[in-house]
Structures are given as C-alpha cells and as structure tokens.
C-alpha cells in the first residue's frame, strides 16, 4: 500500500515537473515550489532530457547517487549505466512500456528499486525513480529462508522414512531373540519339572510320553533358533513361495529366461505373474502359465501366457474388462516408467516391459 501511495505521489510530481519544464515562462514561481515539494518525497526522482542532461534531481535521489556511485548525477543515462554495473544491483523484468527496473542494496542495508522509463509525448524525457523496498526485500529473504528450511526438513524426513524399514527389521530381530530366550527358558523349566516327576516315580509309558513331548518341544525351539534372524528380502524365496501358491491352485508356472535381479523390476514382473496366475485360474481354467523373460538394453521384457480354454481354442475371451487388479498393475508398472500390454489374439497374454534401474 505504502509503495502504491509513493508511486502515485511520484507520478503526480513527475506530471507537474514535466508540465513545468514544458511551460517555463509561465511557472517560474511554481517550479521552485515544485522542487521544494519533490525534495520532501521519501522516494528518489530524477528527470533528465532524452540525451541524459539532468533537469531535476530531488534530495533523496542525490543522496542515493552519492552513496552508490560516489558523486551527484551529472548525466542521467550514465547514472543508470553505473547503477547497472554495481555488484549489489539485480536486474528486474521490464514492463510493456519499456521501463526497466533494478534492485540495489545500499551500503546502509536499505534496498531500493530503481525504475527507468521514457515519458510519453513530445519532447520526451528520461525519468528515473527510486522506491524504498527494504521491507519487501526483507520479507522475501525471510520467506526464501523459511522455504529452504522446509525443503531441507522434507528431504531429511524422506531420508528418515527410508530408514524405517531397517529399523523395523532390527526390531524384529530383537523381538525374535527375545522370543528365543523365552522359548529356551520354558524348555529348561519343562525339563527341570520332568526330572522332578521322573525322580518322584513314573511308570514307563508316562515317562516315554513325557520324554517324547520334551524332545518335540526342544526340536521346535532349536528349529526356530536356526531361523531367528529375519531373511533378506531380495532372496530367492519370493519365487519359491509364488510357485508353491501356483501349485496350490493347480496351475504350474513354466519359466524361461532369467528374472531381473534388480528389486523393483523383479517385483513388477512377479506382480504381473501373480495377476496372470489369478486370472488364469479364475477365468481361463488353465493348468500352466508360461513366463518368458528377456533382457534388452537395460529393460526386462516378460511375456506371460496361459494354456487355458481360450488359448487352446485359439480365440479371444468372450468378454474382457480390465478389472481393478489389472488396472492396479498397469498403474504400478507405469509409475516405474514401464509398459503393460494385453494381447487378446489367443486367450489373454501379458507383455511387461520394465526398466531395470532408474
């Protein structure tokens, strides 16, 4: 608001000065009055001829010129050039009238916006205004610092979230160890109790049953201890589990080629295989699903097709709609920069193309 009022005052003062310069004979008294008025303005103003000869420079502008260039304004065009070359000056965008603006930080910490323009009409004058924008510049710097801080915090937050998985794994390991300690403790107590029972006198059958129970318990605990550490998540058992599930639904998976080793690509291909298995069992009544993986210039291409009724009949399925499962799969693949293609010429077959590393 303050800047707007300043601009209005400056505009009025400039109009008055231009009129004064254009009609010097009539307004000699008025000119001195105008000069005194513009000297009291909080903003700087300089009016010069088109060739740069200064006609009017108010007190504030003179003060600024001395602070920034070391001398008063002798030539308005040269003054603008000197301003532009200052290391503390920043060029702002010009507007449609050809005005150009500079933002200059003065040695006293204040920030000034200098605007240069040519007046309309004949003769044309060169006008330079200086407006105090210290408060705006300070607010902008604070906002920028706050944004930077927020960006840093977001980046750190995301890094920390990436570590959550590791933390969970460590917690699980700790929990597994505690569980192992508890189980061992229970077994020891059971053994001690059994010893007492045997000492107190047990018939042979009861003793055998007790021993068998003890052995079973110890066996279970020792087997558990062997697996107490959680396994790494990129191992081979993801495939084994999927094959086990395929066998459960009576649809064997026939693999050819190598699955990608890279985690994301592998996970996407396996997701596609799951989707195809699910559809093959539910709709096509297939007994085998073929998966052929190829590596091509940093991409994995997987062709997946089943031996279901439509594939054997050599036709397309009677009705096909892309349900939530396929749509989710497509979204996941495309999110990683891959492509999913459906082919309906012989039953339903999927082709997945995923980048191996992003």
């Amino acid at each position, binding site marked *: 608001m303050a800047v707007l009022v300043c601009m209005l005052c400056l505009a009025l003062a400039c109009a008055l000065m231009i009129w004064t310069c254009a009609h010097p004979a009539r307004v000699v008294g008025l000119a001195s009055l105008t000069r005194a008025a513009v000297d009291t303005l909080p903003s700087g103003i300089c009016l010069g001829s088109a060739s740069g000869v200064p006609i009017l420079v108010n007190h504030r502008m003179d003060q600024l010129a001395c602070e920034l260039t070391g001398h008063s304004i002798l030539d308005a065009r040269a003054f603008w050039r000197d301003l532009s070359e200052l290391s503390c000056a920043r060029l702002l965008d010009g507007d449609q009238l050809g005005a150009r603006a500079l933002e200059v930080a003065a040695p006293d910490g204040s920030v000034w916006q200098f605007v240069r323009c040519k007046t309309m009409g004949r003769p044309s004058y060169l006008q330079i205004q200086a407006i105090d924008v210290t408060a705006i510049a300070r607010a902008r710097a604070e906002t920028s610092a706050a944004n930077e801080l927020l960006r840093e915090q977001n980046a750190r937050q995301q890094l920390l979230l990436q570590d959550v998985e590791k933390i969970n794994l460590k917690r699980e390991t700790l929990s597994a160890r505690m569980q192992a300690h508890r189980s061992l403790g229970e077994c020891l107590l059971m053994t001690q109790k059994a010893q007492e029972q045997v000492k107190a006198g047990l018939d042979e059958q009861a003793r055998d049953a007790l021993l068998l129970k003890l052995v079973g318990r110890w066996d279970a605990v020792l087997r558990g201890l062997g697996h107490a550490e959680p396994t790494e998540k990129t191992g081979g058992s993801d495939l084994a589990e999927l094959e086990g599930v395929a066998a459960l639904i009576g649809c064997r998976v026939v693999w050819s080629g190598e699955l990608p080793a890279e985690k994301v690509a592998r996970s996407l291909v396996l997701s596609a295989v799951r989707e195809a298995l699910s559809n093959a069992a*539910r709709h096509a009544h297939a007994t085998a699903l073929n998966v052929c993986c190829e590596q091509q210039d940093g991409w994995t291409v997987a062709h997946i097709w089943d031996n279901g009724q439509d594939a054997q009949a050599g036709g397309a399925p009677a009705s096909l709609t892309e349900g939530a499962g396929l749509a989710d799969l497509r979204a996941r693949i495309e999110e990683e920069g891959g492509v999913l293609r459906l082919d309906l010429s012989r039953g339903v077959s999927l082709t997945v193309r995923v980048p191996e590393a992003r």
Partner: protein
Amino acid sequence: MTAMVRTIVVEDSLLAREAVVDRLAQLPNVTIVATLENAANAVVACARRSIGLVLMDVCTRDDESGLAAAARIKRESPSTRVIIMTSMPEHTFLAKAQAAGCDSFWYKDLQAVGLVDVVERTLRGERVWPSEAPVVWLGLARSSELTAREFDVLHQLARGLSYEQIASELGISLNTVKYHVKNLLAKTGFESTLALVVEAVDKRLVLPKY
C-alpha cells in the same frame, strides 16, 4: 462330520507364523494349506475360491499390504473369511480393514481375547473387532487425544508432503493445515514437525506405505 476349513496364514515373521500355526492346531475343523510371507500371494491362493479362511498380517514381505490383499480377496471371493492380525497401533488400520470388508480384526499380543477364540467366533459368522486402536504416547499426548483430522495431517506429513501439497490432498486451506500442525505440536510438545513425524513412525502410529 464337520467340514474342514482350508486356511491360509500370511505372516512374514517366522516365529509369529509358527505361533499362529501352533495355536490353530488346537482347532479340529481348521486345516492349514499354506503359510505365506507375501500378502499378494494370498490373492492368488484364493483364486479357485477353495479357501475358507485367511489370517492376514498387515505389513508383509516386499511391502505388500495385507489390507489391500484382503480387500481384493473379499471382493473376488466374498465367502472367504478374512481375519486381519497386526501388532501395530497404526490408527487407520481398523477403518481400512472395515472398508475392505474383513470379517475380524485381532491385535497380536495386545488384545485380551485370544486368537483361537477370534477364529472360532469368525467361523461361526461373528464379526470380532476391537473397539479402538491401542493407545500409545506421542510426546506428551496420548494418541487418543488427537483428532481424526490431525491424524490425517500427520499421515500426509509422514509421506513427506509440503503444507501446500497436504492442503491440496485433503481439500483444505493452507492456513487450516498450519492450524492442525500447530495443534499437533502444542499437544505433543515437539518443537518441529520432523521430530513429531519421526516419533509417530517410530511408534508405528503412522505407516503411510500400508
């Protein structure tokens, strides 16, 4: 003779899985046909609609969400009963499980009612649900003291979104987001949203992946 219920257990922790299998062995009408680590594989296992019961963990292998898998199983095979099992106090899990159409929900280690009881009642057609998520301390506040909207904002913060993005995601103004963040910090006593989010994730009160 009672019909056997073909059952799948999805649990990526070996010891927890064995404990569940051990407990289910007490039930004469339950037969476990597979134990899985990855929830997405359970969807495939239910494809022939021959599975009667699925005990589903929420956070499973390869970051597959048990809740998403349960939703799909219930959509494609509504007669399959699904029991969600979790030890995490994440505040949205209960609502998500209900929205997914799951039959029962069991907090491992935290609930007075035992798993065998939950399974038996679920198989009889009963829906067994805890009244609320376990309460944990978040700084100076109990999780029950936070409003649903504050939880929404906390959830989005944990996704690493900026205030502007949160406002757009939740359909509220930037000032409202700041207001909720201010209240969260005031209630919990944390000095920064970063500390707040780290604690919330560490306590597993907020797990944006699932």
